[in-house]
């Protein structure tokens, strides 16, 4: 029984390519809005709120801020991928949604309100954000919401790769939304749960099957020495970069120090909390955007942490991505 993992049933039909993305954060729109000196820019700030998109749609008049951010991020990703909305309508496009916090605003408002609102309650469901996206773009393909805290982003990338390599769809939209503003007081009270500064974000990647790329690999580890066990089998691999996504700055520093001892000095380590702020499940999605933009020829490793859990995806040949 010891560590005998059976790779069965699913054909491994190549890898996955990033076709494009959309990004809104507390820094602005797109990757280019991210600051070059984030530590200076973030100084003294606890929360970097993202601007609520103004979407001219009567249908979305009741939608929450999180829903609007989700729809806007997907629209931006389609634009970046040169895809018209009708090209993602139907059963051959999947939507995988990841979030650690986006349901909190609607839930907390409903918990603390004196008078219920029938129109509000449906938006307390975490599936409300992806629901509005599927309705807006007519998506009826595979559909999943992952809520495993900050690790949900990594899990979403793995699940998207699984859906593509098993041919359950032709294209996957991986969407992450993280918001904190409406519950800022709550997050401040519970600061031991999350580090600061918190960065609000909505990020969407458009992924497609790519037969000549190697398969995306996923691993996760729970418990003591989780990170050490997670990367134990990775040391021999040639990597361009490791992107580390942790929910607190302290965890990031400790884990970053450990990872630097594991790989040669020329391997680049990017600490997402230093680069951006803390944006939980959106961090791995933004990390993949940064990796593709960097255009390095080797593979990259994305690692995230949430409480006792560590998760990673090994993404091959980041320079071969962005095929649009």
């Amino acid at each position, binding site marked *: 029984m010891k*560590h005998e993992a059976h790779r*069965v049933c*699913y054909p491994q039909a190549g890898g996955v390519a990033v076709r494009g993305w959309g990004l809104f954060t507390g820094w602005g729109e797109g990757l280019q809005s991210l600051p070059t000196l984030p530590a200076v820019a973030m100084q003294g700030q606890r929360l970097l709120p993202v601007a609520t998109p103004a979407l001219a749609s009567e249908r979305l008049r009741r939608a929450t801020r999180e829903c609007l951010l989700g729809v806007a991020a997907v629209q931006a990703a389609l634009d970046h991928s040169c895809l018209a909305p009708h090209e993602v309508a139907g059963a051959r496009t999947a939507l995988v949604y990841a979030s650690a916090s986006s349901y909190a605003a609607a839930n907390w408002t409903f918990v603390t309100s004196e008078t219920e609102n029938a129109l509000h309650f449906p938006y307390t469901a975490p599936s409300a954000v992806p629901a509005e996206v599927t309705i807006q773009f007519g998506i*009826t393909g595979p559909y999943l919401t992952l809520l495993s805290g900050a690790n949900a982003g990594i899990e979403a990338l793995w699940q998207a790769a699984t859906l593509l390599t098993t041919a*359950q769809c032709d294209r996957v939209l991986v969407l992450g939304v993280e918001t904190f503003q409406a519950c800022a007081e709550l997050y401040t*009270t519970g600061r031991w749960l999350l580090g600061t500064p918190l960065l609000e974000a909505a990020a969407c990647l458009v992924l497609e099957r790519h037969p000549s790329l190697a398969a995306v690999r996923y691993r996760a580890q*729970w418990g003591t020495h989780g990170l050490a066990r997670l990367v134990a089998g990775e040391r021999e691999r040639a990597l361009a970069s490791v992107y580390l996504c942790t929910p607190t700055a302290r965890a990031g520093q400790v884990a970053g120090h450990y990872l630097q001892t594991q790989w040669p000095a020329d391997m680049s380590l990017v600490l997402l909390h230093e680069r951006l702020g803390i944006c939980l499940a959106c961090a791995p999605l933004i990390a993949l955007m940064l990796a593709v933009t960097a255009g390095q020829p080797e593979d990259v490793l994305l690692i995230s942490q*949430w409480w006792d859990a560590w998760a990673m995806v090994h993404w091959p040949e980041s320079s071969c991505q962005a095929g649009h």
Partner: protein
Amino acid sequence: MMSGTPHQRPDDRIAITGMGVLSPIGQGVEAFWSGLINGVSGITTIERFPTHDLRVRRGGEIKQLRDIRGLARPLPACRASQFLIHAATEATRMARLPEAVAAGGRVAVVIGSALGGIAEAERWHEQPGDLHALAGAPYDGPTRQLARWLDATGPVLTISTACASGATSLGLGVDLLRAGAATAVVAGGMDVLCRFVMRGFNRLRSLTRDEVRPFDRRRKGLLLGEGAGVVVLECAQTARRRGITPCGYVLGHASCADGAHITAPDPQGRGLEQSIRLALANAGVRGEEIEFISAHGTGTPLNDRMETQVFKKVLGARAYEVPVNSIKAHMGHTMGAAATLETIMCLLAWRYGQIPPTLNYGEPDPECDLPYVTGHARTYRPRLSLNTAAGFGGCNACLVLAGGE
């Protein structure tokens, strides 16, 4: 249309080697089955929190949690976590999972829920000060508690596809095993009744003051319930090597979107239809091979009509020969737990050669004209079953299940 798993070799199948149940009609698999077969109703007046201001004050409430034998440590305070631990303890003991863990197995945990730990947020709001209650309030709080309880070492995932969560979580567990990310997966669904959800459904006026009557012409809506269903998933080959006889198999799965409405199901059932077709393809099973359907069957006018139409669309004339049931009238809609409990019911139907009845059915609806199992349990041993589920946000899921053999 898809490659999936067209011809699964017996050793490649994903086996269910343990099952655990906590439900309003019984705690434990055998009590649950007895309640289903004997037509027991778990619907009572809700007593655990105030309901005086609600239109409907009934539901499938679990009045008292039975003690678990041989616990090494106290249960966490969070009710949702307690539910999960109850069901998981039964499932892991049945699967002899502790032996596998001791031998170095990588155990993953995948839990689906429509509400997560929201009851803890409610508790914190009522009695502020206990900051630790907040740690259980996120959706993933109860899953993390279970992972700690089980000393899991593999992936720990929380999903929410609303009331389809209990099926999607099993599907994700299957994917983890097929990807080699774990050697065993403890998967399932859970939800607890609380004022939050009762207030919400009260305002939506989805709850009935009558009985829940799936597929009946007089059906007026649903009632909510609470519970947990947990299974242990392993590759059949691993189970065989460990000397475990599987309870059954998950042959295929899929979860798809309606893309139609924020709460109501698509009247044409496009997402459900796509889920069933993908799950059948994933299993390598043809529609005409299906021998039993465990329907979502909430007892709402729209859902039951839509589901009936979809079954006819996918199975064609065969739909009129396949027995269909819904167990929502026994215990209410247990939300995230529902589809896992129904999966367990399908495997027990194979084991015992009986299909539990759909309670409170009396008047046929011309728009719901399939061979529903009503009145009493039917003697029948379904080898291949479909289990369908749907939820808010246009979430749909389907599992293709096979009895153990």
